């Protein structure tokens, strides 16, 4: 038994020793590592969303109980940010993925590259699942006329009037961006510590201020607004998706030399 075991071991060793840039198993095991404790990526965000949903329902019931005009309330719900409530937590998920899970994966013998690719794949899977769920809940909310009591949680902000595909695409892009910002910032910390993170944060603020200044001095705000309106919701979220991919690539470059504490 030992002989066959060592024979397969050496065969496996030879197989993996072969130079290959793609190691699907090494990347997939990082995805599995992220799902060992599903509370991190799924449990807490959906508890937050569920909590926000419950609060929305209670508000709707209070309005109904006070016999307020429901059609106006429905318009009011369109300004609710409840649907975005889990996004803030996903920043935390992105931060924790690098600050806790990355040192752990290194201790278990993963490479930084495989860790980042696996984590990125996990982010994509989570974003797809959450986006599909939220887009579907949006349709259910519409079909049940606001969960039967005229409450509106998902039919808000840019989701108003959006079809399933648009809702899915926009949510996917936003989740991906939020996760990669959290993880990306933390890779900077892992590589250059506080100095690096402060440089990036202040650099980011300076960049935003510079853009605002340029837009203000050239009086281009209206033109920007018109352009954003012309590309529509899908166009705007394509920009968001591009930004997410930019963070993903930058994160890969940074994490290659990052060191856990």
């Amino acid at each position: 038994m030992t002989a066959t075991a060592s024979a397969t071991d050496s065969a496996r060793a030879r197989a993996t020793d072969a130079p290959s840039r793609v190691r699907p198993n090494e990347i997939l095991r990082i995805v599995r590592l992220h799902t060992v404790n599903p509370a991190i990526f799924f449990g807490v965000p959906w508890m937050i969303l569920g909590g926000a949903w419950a609060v929305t329902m209670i508000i709707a019931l209070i309005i109904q109980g006070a016999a307020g005009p429901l059609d106006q309330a429905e318009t009011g719900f369109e300004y609710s940010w409840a649907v975005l409530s889990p996004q803030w937590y996903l920043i935390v998920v992105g931060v924790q993925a690098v600050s806790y899970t990355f040192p752990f994966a290194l201790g278990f013998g993963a490479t930084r590259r495989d860790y980042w690719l696996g984590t990125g794949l996990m982010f994509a899977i989570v974003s797809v699942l959450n986006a599909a769920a939220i887009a579907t809940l949006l349709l259910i909310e519409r079909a049940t006329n606001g969960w039967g009591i005229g409450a509106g949680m998902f039919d808000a902000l840019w989701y108003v009037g959006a079809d399933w595909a648009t809702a899915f695409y926009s949510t996917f892009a936003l989740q991906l961006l939020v996760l990669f910002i959290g993880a990306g910032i933390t890779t900077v910390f892992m590589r250059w510590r506080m100095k690096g993170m402060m440089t990036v944060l202040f650099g980011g603020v300076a960049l935003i201020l510079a853009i605002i200044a340029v837009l203000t001095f050239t009086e281009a705000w209206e033109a920007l607004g018109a352009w954003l309106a012309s590309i529509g919701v899908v166009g705007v979220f394509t920009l968001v998706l591009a930004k997410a991919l930019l963070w993903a690539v930058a994160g890969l470059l940074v994490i290659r030399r990052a060191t856990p504490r």
Partner: protein
Amino acid sequence: MTTTVVRARGLTKRYGSFTAIDGIDLSLEEGRIYGLLGRNGAGKTTVMQLLTGQIFANGGELEVFGRQPAEHADVLRRMCFIAEAQRYPEDFTPAHVFRAAPWFFEHWDAEFAERLIADFRLPVKRRIKKLSRGQLSAVGVIVGLASRAPLTFFDEPYLGLDAVARHIFYDRLLEDYAAHPRTVVLSTHLIDEVANLLEHVILIDQGRILLDRDAEEVRGSATTVAGARAAVEQFVAGRPVIGREGIGGLASVTVDGRLDHDERVRAAELGLELAPVSLQQLIVHLTGAELAESTEKEVAA
């Protein structure tokens, strides 16, 4: 036939102006148990982080299984290093750790891990954050043992472990090492506890290697000579003295190097007592007396 698994030359690691590892040369052979000994802050963890590619050297050469370790999957998959201050994913329990382990360690023995969990009475459903220091050490010890990685690092495995648990670790390591030979590196400042386990001793202090020798050789390499002060001084004259103590007319002096038969006879004629020096005593002599105090305190705690 022995194979060298780790080869380092002039390895240097600096943090700003502080030199943590100061140009060390090191080689580790396959199938031995190494003790990486030294005081707190001597650079033990830094060495292990360098060897496992967790941090990057500022200078020198390093080969582990024939290659640079960092970012080389085929090198990293043959190593296991659970740091003493290891970070675990948020809200992880030991059960989560052991479920993920077989995906990373191809030789993982789940049955062995189960047995160790029972031996150490580790509460596997408790969150890692809530574990005591000893239970946390047990997690690292179980991963290190059950992973059967060809190059396994134990970083301060005795930290917080009670006497029974220390004994279990000692027994299980020797048992499993006999059945599945591999290279083990054990870092600790609790030297007496591990002294009998070690086959080779590497003593590190302030980022430099003070001693890199076979453990058997080290054990017999120094002798304490005790007796009347004048006789002791006469006997040790001209020998390398590494420690000196005395009360009144009595003296006890530790000298480096073995004593041959004639010298032992002469000592007996002078009415001197000769005592072998334990690994811990020798290391205290080499790195300063404070180590003894800190070690005793930790064992007592």
